[in-house]
């Protein structure tokens, strides 16, 4: 599983949603977060972060730069191409999930979710990358 001290980037256009995600991540023991409200801002955050981001949890459906655009930029970048990327989605987007997985998403989480489920999904994502 991820080490609790890693820095996690949380991306969602809704502030409330970011809060919920971070709250769940906190109950899983994580504490170092940075947030962004769309893909473009997330990309900035990623590049300006003083320590390397170890996990990205991102919404899919955002104005301006979408989750997919953001993912593509992350995967094309030398520093972050191996960084676990977990997608937040609602069930109707399952079509898109396929596309996302094909583009290099490590796992996806369907809204609404509990901290438990989030933990399990992260564990799977971690295994995929590092085991």
């Amino acid at each position: 599983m991820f080490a609790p001290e890693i820095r996690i980037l949380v991306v969602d256009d809704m502030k409330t949603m970011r809060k919920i995600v971070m709250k769940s991540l906190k109950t899983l023991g994580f504490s170092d977060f940075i947030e962004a409200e769309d893909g473009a801002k997330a990309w900035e955050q990623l590049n300006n972060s003083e320590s390397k981001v170890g996990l990205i949890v991102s919404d899919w459906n955002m104005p301006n730069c979408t989750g997919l655009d953001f993912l593509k930029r992350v995967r094309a970048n030398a520093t972050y191409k191996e960084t676990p990327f977990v997608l937040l989605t609602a069930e109707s987007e399952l079509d898109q999930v396929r596309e996302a997985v094909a583009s290099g998403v490590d796992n996806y989480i369907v809204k609404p979710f509990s901290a438990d489920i989030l933990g399990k999904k992260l564990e799977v994502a971690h295994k995929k990358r590092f085991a």
Partner: protein
Amino acid sequence: MDLSQYKIMCVDDEKDVLMLRSDFVLDLGFTPILATNVEEAIAHLNNCGEEIIFILSDYEMPGTKGLEFRRMIFDDFSQIPFAIISGYLTKEMALEGIDLKICAFLDKPEDEEVLKQLINKETSAFIEEKEEELELIEGFIDDTKGLLADIEEIILQLETEPTELSNIDDLMRLLHTIKGTGSCVGLKVLSKFAHKFEDLATEIKKGERQVTVDLINGFLKAYDYLKFLMENAVESEKIDISENLKLLDISKTNNDVQTAESLDVNTELQASGGKKSKDSLVKKEEISVGIDILDSFMELSGNLTVSRNTAVKMINNIQIEFTNNKSIESLSTALNEMNKVSTQMQNLIVETRKVSLRNVYKPLPRIVRDVTRDTGKKATLLFEGDELRVDNSIAKVLTNSLVHMVRNSVDHAIESPEDRASGKKVEQGKIKICSYEEGENVVVEVSDDGKGISTELIKNKLISNGAFSEAEISEMSKRKLLSMIFHPGFSTAAAVTDISGRGVGMDMVMTSVKKLGGQIITESKVGFGTSFKMILPKPKSVLILDSLFVTVSDKKFAIPQDEIDRVIHLDEKVKKNLRYANNKMFLKYEDDKLLPVIHIDEILGLNKVGKDKKDLKNVTSLIVLRHDETQCVVLINEILDVEEIVVKKLQHSLRDLEVFLGVTYGEGDDLYLVLSTKGLLEAAQISLDEDTVDEGEDEVLEVANYTDFIEVGLNSEANYMLPLSQVYSLENIKKENIQYSVGAPILSYKENTLHLYCLVDLVDGGNGLSLPNNLSGEFKVIVFYLQDIFVGFVVPDILDINKVYDEINDGLSDNKSILGAIRFNERIINIINIFHLFDVIGLHRKKTIKEAELDISQAA
């Protein structure tokens, strides 16, 4: 934190004991639920189990015992902490208690302190979690407010561009966000509704359904319901929405939305320059602050200004007494610094309170759309100046008022397309909302090119209402008659329609505008249209007024200079002009007017002065006061001094005393009350609507609107005027006060800088920076306040202020500085285009109201 939403259930077969427990629970802040037996208790649990956070049950009860009760409900409600009160405790009971997660056995009679701590310990985690959930829901609602408004806008947009798929994409994304986040904060019902809504939009995207009239109507209804669910998010979770989900069952077969040409509504956001940027959806990181806090800020900053001014005044006095004292000089510098910071802070506070008019106007297109649809009319809604930001208090009044006014305009003013066609008008009616700042006011003009308001109809209505006698009505001026549409219970609608015509709305509009200290000027021309000009004063944290100090009945009061028309020394000649009628005193003024005399002492309950002619012996002067068009006279014992004062608002408990604007500090530490003319008039029950002079005005209003112009003498060859409405102030400036900054003449003015320009030079096409050489010691300046900058035009002479009814003949001059010419009193007068001059000196114009007026008159 509101604990009363959490319930504690007490179960005991003794009613007296229950009553004691109930009081105890109430004292803790929770809501008690009482049951005298287990059956009752179970009924409560089934009814509102999720709100019960603690159960306190007696052990020994007839029938079912406490532990048995816990066992019965254990499967469904084991998560609710359960305590038992018992006179005894056996080992078996204790063991079973562990099994059933009984949190405590309390001795009977229970120790209240122990019980209190127990409840606190058992419920705090749960309450904290609940509060966090609530906070998330509140945050979510806050986050989505903007999105909701966008949804409505997109639906309306979709109606005008049914094939534009980007609208659908936006709609889907917004609904998707609401659905996803809503489900995460635990709003299942809302989320379900948004989901079905989104599905419907997806069908369009997939090409499975067309954008039809029914679909748009359905979308809008669904949007209304979605908004309702959001506004009542927590309560909505308990309701069954299966009926409302049917709103989204919309038949697929229907005629397509009409093509763009025959659409009834289109909104042009002229000022915003067409396409709205999509990033308006992305918000900056923000925190929300309660309006009450901002209100307090405003008031505190006002208080700060008052103290600041007192301190500055004192230090000036001290400096005169102790010249060349270093410490005092440093203190003075420090105070000046503080002065600057406090001014800056005040400006920021004012800015913080502002909201964009664009947001205020957002609901209006939908209203025009719905009402035109319901009435079969056609209308376009135009905005101008909606980029303006206004104080929250003004926005609030506008939000409530414009809905009524726009609805009224479509419903009553705009004619049916057939009527318009036969009246040689274009079928599409036009409603325009023009917003701009004028001096210390925000002005919002709602105008239409509809049928205008017939004063005959108003008269008939008033007579049939029985509110006024025929004689009274026949004496009313046109202005007065038009103002009657704001009278409570007045409605000119021939038939009360579903949409408007109950006469409630306009009354409310006037009340709320007046509450802000504003006014509405109605102008109407039968067959051509109506305009409502709402003049709303910007709120001020502090009022600085030139005031005249006077005494009345040995009390000292201040009267604002700008409310004073004239001060008249009471001599024998003037005494002859004091008349009595119906036991009231009047002053014959300027030959033709009888002005009512208001006895301040009587209104304030002081000793009477000058009640009879004999009593005038202590009265030395009369002051003619004016508020808007209404004048009155007050009797004064002694005129003291003119002084610039800072007016502080009265304490909250005294604010109802409208006779006073506030208080001010005078010499020493004494407080003086500042009189308000408006308040005096109201207290003396002199109607503010009634015009004291009203000759010829009727016909004039009938013909055209007038504009006030200042006539200036520039050179001997021609006459020049410029519009008074733009002018901030007229000043006499001393030549020695002028300073030069980078070659440009400036002087310090109202704690700010006044930039001077030579008007003659500007009109001649120069840069205006070189002032005339022949300036005498004191000269005249016309001051404008534009975008926080004071600009003064130096003029050789100010000749007069004139009301001009004529229209401007433009195109007569090839000089851009001249807007055109008018004929006035048999002379041709050039109208100076001050906006062009502002452009020349590098100030972009803020308002184009003259152009707006021209536009409307051309449309008519």
